């Protein structure tokens, strides 16, 4: 019996090896293409922004008006600081709309006391159905501040309400806890000024854990010493500077982080706003915008700005992180399923023929393939059809490739923005890059598989994110 199973496993492994090898080569070959692409794109970008007098150009009255949509739910402790930082952003035509999504704490009262809110009436067109608005306020000290108090309906619903009240040509969707760089909007708006077919832009989001924050701004960057936060620093750098930047040059961006993105308001309204019944509403909106622009005869560019424009707090507990990754993967699966008509459809240009299949076969199915790979290897070892030496070498090869790619991403960051410039930060960054593939990656495979399983079972809950809060500056700082 054992011999029969052993022979079966052996046959399966032998037949599957070429498929696995082909997949391994294709994916890693493509990663190398992305790395080169991001290197070229970063070089072009740095050449364009060196010595640029952005202040002069972007302080123009012709600059598009931006409405920042900041959904808030039970944020009484942090809302004042976050909002003051938003109101102090360096951008000429700015409107800030805080949408209290049925907060049960004193969020609205705190806003009212600190920003001298007065109830107002306005005329607005409700093009998207949302939960009812309870009250609308305007600040008598900050004319550009609007506060909407509405019944609870989730982030997508809050953003949709914000869209209805926004007066800006562009809307900036963000999370309540995102810290935006003072000149972040000036950097993000650039693609809209430089091309007419841009419907949305995203920028590089960095991990704030470990850095010092003062009055809603990052004043000193540092790589966190916490294991999970540190590993996510290199993960974020790779995702933004290597993944999205590389795709940007190839015209294949379909992801804008929900933490901070800039959109053409009319395009979002025409598309019907954010969807409520998905956990991947950010990606879904971007893919829908892209799809609709193809259907309307354009390419609807999604641009990516490599400048570090915003900072976000990442989970430091395995439980929270697992829930986040599980949700992200469920979101990805849901979005790809909703827009499955785009797969290999020439009507959707490069997105249908290339980007969508990449996300489906590489990003979505990667955990499945990795899990199958690990499982087969285990079986092979148990039944003695794979020898230990070979298995070890193959793992080391895969590990080496992953680490080399991450290391080159760190170099890209260092050559361009070098925000982590102390020796301590360098050592830590490299350390996190080295150990990322030793357990953490396998853990993310598990979380993503769990997400996929939940998607198949139809789960759409968000889970709870535990945050530690930002590290304040010391007395000296």
């Amino acid at each position, binding site marked *: 019996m054992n011999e029969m199973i052993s022979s079966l496993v052996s046959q399966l492994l*032998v037949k599957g*090896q070429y498929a696995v*090898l082909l997949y391994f080569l294709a994916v890693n070959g493509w990663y190398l293409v992305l790395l080169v692409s991001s290197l070229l794109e970063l070089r072009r970008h740095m*050449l*364009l922004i*060196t*010595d*640029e*007098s952005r*202040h*002069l*150009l972007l302080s*123009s*009255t*012709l600059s598009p008006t931006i409405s920042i949509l900041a959904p808030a739910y039970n944020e009484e402790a942090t809302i004042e600081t976050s909002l003051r930082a938003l109101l102090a952003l360096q951008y000429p035509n700015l409107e800030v709309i805080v949408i209290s999504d049925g907060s049960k704490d004193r969020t609205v009262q705190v806003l009212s006391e600190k920003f001298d809110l007065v109830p*107002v*009436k*306005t*005329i607005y*067109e409700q093009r998207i159905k949302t939960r009812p608005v309870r009250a609308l306020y305007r600040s008598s000290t900050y004319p550009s501040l609007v506060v909407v108090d509405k019944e609870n309906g989730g982030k997508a619903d809050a953003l949709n309400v914000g869209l209805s009240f926004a007066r800006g040509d562009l809307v900036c969707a963000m999370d309540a806890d995102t810290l935006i760089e003072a000149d972040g909007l000036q950097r993000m708006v650039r693609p809209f*000024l*430089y*091309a*007419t077919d841009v419907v949305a832009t995203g920028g590089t989001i960095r991990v704030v854990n470990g850095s010092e924050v003062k009055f809603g701004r990052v004043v000193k960057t540092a790589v966190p010493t916490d294991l999970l936060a540190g590993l996510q620093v290199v993960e974020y750098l790779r995702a933004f500077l290597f993944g999205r930047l590389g795709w940007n040059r190839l015209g294949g961006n379909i992801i804008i982080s929900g933490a901070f993105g800039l959109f053409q308001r009319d395009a979002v309204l025409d598309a019907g706003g954010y969807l409520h019944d998905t956990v991947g509403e950010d990606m879904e909106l971007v893919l829908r915008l892209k799809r609709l622009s193809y259907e309307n005869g354009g390419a609807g560019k999604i641009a990516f700005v490599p400048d570090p424009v915003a900072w976000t707090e990442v989970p430091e507990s395995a439980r929270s992180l697992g829930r986040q990754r599980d949700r992200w993967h469920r979101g990805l699966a849901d979005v790809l399923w909703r827009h499955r008509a785009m797969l290999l459809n020439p009507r959707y240009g490069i997105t249908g023929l290339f980007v969508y299949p990449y996300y489906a076969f590489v990003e979505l199915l990667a955990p499945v393939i990795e899990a199958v790979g690990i499982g087969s290897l285990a079986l092979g070892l148990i039944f003695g059809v*794979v020898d230990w*030496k*070979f298995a070890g*070498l*193959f793992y*080391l*090869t895969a590990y*080496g*490739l992953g*680490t*080399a790619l991450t*290391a*080159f991403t*760190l*170099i890209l960051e*260092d*050559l361009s923005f*070098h925000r982590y*410039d102390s*020796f301590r930060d*360098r050592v830590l960054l*490299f350390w996190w890059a080295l150990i990322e593939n030793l357990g953490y990656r396998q853990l993310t495979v598990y979380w993503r598989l769990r997400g996929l399983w939940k998607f198949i079972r139809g789960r759409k809950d968000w889970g709870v994110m535990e945050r530690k809060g930002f590290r304040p500056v010391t007395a000296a700082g």
Partner: protein
Amino acid sequence: MVSVDLLHIVMLIELGLLAVAVVLFFAHGVWLSLTQKRLLRLTGAGRDSLARLVTRGTVNVEEMSALRALPRYVQVIAFLEISRNLSGTGKERLRFVAQEIGLIDRARALCADRKWQRRLRGARILSQLDVADPLVQTLLADEHPAVRAQAAEWASSQPSVPVISAMLSLLADPATQARFAVQNALLRMGRVVAEPLADFLQNQSGRAAEAGLRVAESVAEPSFGPAAVRLSQSDDVAIRVGAARLLGAIGDARAAERLMAMIHDDEARVRAAAAQSLGRMQHWQAGSLLGDALRDRTWRVRREAGLALRAIGAAGALFLRRALKGDDRFAADMAQQVLDLPDAAAG
């Protein structure tokens, strides 16, 4: 099975790459740390020398030599940092020092370079120092849009007839980046562009007219009137919208007459812009037309008509109250919303 030898080779390559990455990463860190300390020291010294030279107004040979001895990139940083905070005599002195130490000649050489990134850098230096150099003007016709945009930025401080003329022709630039920079620069030039822009708009259509109308709306001179009237009959919707806004900004009797005709336009965006402009002009004679527009099938037109009636004052309020009792429930709803608005929200 995949050969073990092949895996060994791949691993060796990866190991080599990783070693290169480690060396590059840390060596770059050391290099950055050393150069940044030096850069800070040199820029600080350069900035101090420059500040003294600019405030004193007399040339100190030693300080000039010290500035000349600085590396080029440090000179550029120090000069550009200071130039942002200077104007008038201070900037003239800064230019004099830049000329004396050879920075302007270097920037000029960059402007004539074969590579676009160098031309861009040269144009940026000359722009920020406000150097009136015809060489930068030639860059308005550069093949790279970023360079054209930078030359346009330079032009904002050089409002001569040939420069304005060259800038106007760039309003039709296919690159949005260059077009935006040109519009912005024309606006910064101020009223001096009014006459040439009015002449220009008389003969334009398409992209150039649309971009020009945006500038004209901000300048808002009565001389734009004939061009605005002509363009308000364009086939292009965006141009008609731009023309309606410009007519509202001009605000004379002829503009009002044309706007009242435009409120019947086939395109909702144009009707909304016309209503908004009539409100901006507080043209009470348009009350009846705006009252009709309250019954428009498009929400945006109804909103602009309602707000315009409110802006007109008592006469407009009369039409709004009349709409409350009318048979059109959409008009009545909009009229109610407008009448409910607090004073500060009007307009």
